[in-house]
């Protein structure tokens, strides 16, 4: 009785704390890395090399004045940031960090589908955030953002289906086990799906080059224009938590999760001294760095180019990948 409730609650507490702290440091990391890419230094004043900026920023957001627009729907206005953050955090209940039961909260037999369905609930935060602000620009921006999200969800889901075909199971631990048995990361077996998932992940999290809905020069800041203080902080946290979620899922699906590189080559077994969760965290880190790198480098897509890419390029490629995977799976 104690074990079935207390230990998962402890794990959830540790996980949510770790996640929220990582998100604040991710914000700082983004500012620093983008600054270095632009030949400047980023935040340097608070703490050594600006490290404490991550702690000071949330404090600033908490202390800001909380403004609700006149005639905004109060309940929905309050609910929107919550509906954005809750799915981003809830997904981590099925993301494992190792084979040992200590490293995950739950391993359900439909884990991957759970992740897809819970992230599709995150669209509500954006739609409601724009609508509840009772103002033109956020409404338009939220419609654009949600249309983008539901379009790229299709491509992402199809690439995940090809991973399911390759691994034969929906459970997250099962997928890593399949990669261990195959002796090779799925990124090498399914390179097209890997690239597609990464691009789709960029679009799902509203990151450059797909960040038109929240660019400051377009539609004055997007769906979170009217939000200030802690409500904006929740939207912000939700976006960066989504980035970590997508990185974690891509790492588990395509980079073998917590397996070392080339798990089948015995000569590299000396690398097993590194605990498995450190492998997964480093892979997530690599993806986060690449996300920020892309933001510093690429210009953003125009909205019609964006939708064109999602529907006319990524979905056909994803379907073709699925068909080829199916044929290979039957013949081999």
């Amino acid at each position, binding site marked *: 009785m104690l074990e079935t409730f207390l230990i998962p609650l402890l794990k959830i507490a540790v996980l949510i704390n770790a996640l929220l702290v990582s998100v604040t440091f991710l914000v700082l990391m983004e500012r620093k890395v983008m600054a270095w890419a632009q030949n400047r230094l980023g935040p340097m004043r608070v703490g050594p090399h600006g490290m404490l900026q991550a702690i000071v920023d949330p404090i600033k957001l908490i202390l800001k004045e909380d403004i609700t627009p006149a005639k905004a*729907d109060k*309940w*929905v206005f309050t*609910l929107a940031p919550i509906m954005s953050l809750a799915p981003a955090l809830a997904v981590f209940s099925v993301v494992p960090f190792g084979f040992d039961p200590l490293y995950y909260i739950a391993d*359900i*037999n*439909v884990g991957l*589908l*759970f992740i*897809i*369905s*819970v992230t*599709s*609930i995150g*669209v*509500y935060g954006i*739609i*409601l955030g724009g*609508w509840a602000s009772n103002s033109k620009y956020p*409404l338009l921006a939220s*419609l654009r953002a*949600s249309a983008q999200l*539901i379009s790229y969800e299709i491509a992402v889901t199809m690439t995940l289906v090809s991973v399911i075909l390759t691994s034969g199971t*929906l459970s997250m631990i099962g997928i890593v086990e399949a990669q261990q048995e195959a002796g090779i990361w799925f990124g090498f077996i399914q390179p097209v799906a890997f690239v597609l998932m990464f691009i789709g992940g960029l679009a799902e999290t509203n990151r450059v080059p797909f960040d038109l809905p929240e660019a400051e020069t377009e539609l004055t800041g997007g769906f979170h224009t009217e939000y200030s203080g802690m409500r904006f902080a929740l939207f912000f946290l939700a976006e960066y938590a989504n980035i970590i979620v997508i990185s974690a899922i891509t790492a588990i699906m395509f980079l073998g999760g917590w397996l070392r590189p080339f798990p089948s080559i015995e000569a590299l077994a000396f690398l097993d001294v590194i605990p498995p969760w450190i492998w997964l965290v480093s892979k997530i880190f690599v993806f986060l760095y690449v996300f920020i790198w892309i933001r510093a480098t690429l210009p953003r897509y125009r909205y019609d180019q964006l939708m064109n890419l999602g529907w006319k390029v990524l979905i056909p490629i994803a379907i073709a990948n699925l068909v080829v995977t199916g044929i290979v799976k039957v013949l081999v």
Partner: protein
Amino acid sequence: MLEAVVFYTLATFILGLGILVITARTPVHSVLFLVLNFLLVAVLYVTLGAQYVAVIQVLVYAGGVVVLYLFVVMLVSLKRAPEEHGDNRRLGVLGALLGGAVLAELIAIIFASRRNTNTVVNATSDMPARLSDPMLNTEQLGWLLYTEYLIPFELASMLLLVAMIGAIVLAKKNI
């Protein structure tokens, strides 16, 4: 015992949210209560051991269908007051008649299904032994959909295709 508590709590919430859907003041509130309703029905599916159906319920219903409802509801702002929609008493009688018809149908289905409990067992008798674990929801469903119920499956996908083409034809200005 625990199952009964969970079921009755869920049932109360589901029914309560259903009533809130009908009696909410704005259409957007109504849609939000509907989302919550669907999420709780997914939890109900989990208690029945149908994990795949639960996740698909969230993915398709709460995450797809209701999002599109929300788009339409948001963009069509109803300025007319609800009282202008017609005679309340007549609508009430009509509602009671329709509700009674649906209730009678449900009771008929429950009594009819109590007599034929063999069909489900027969359908799964051809499944390979490796799929007999009840935790292999998705695999069992996949097996059935592609062997026993292949024609309904293909017909359903044809229906979706027709709906998609119909939507495009209706919405496009020049094809």
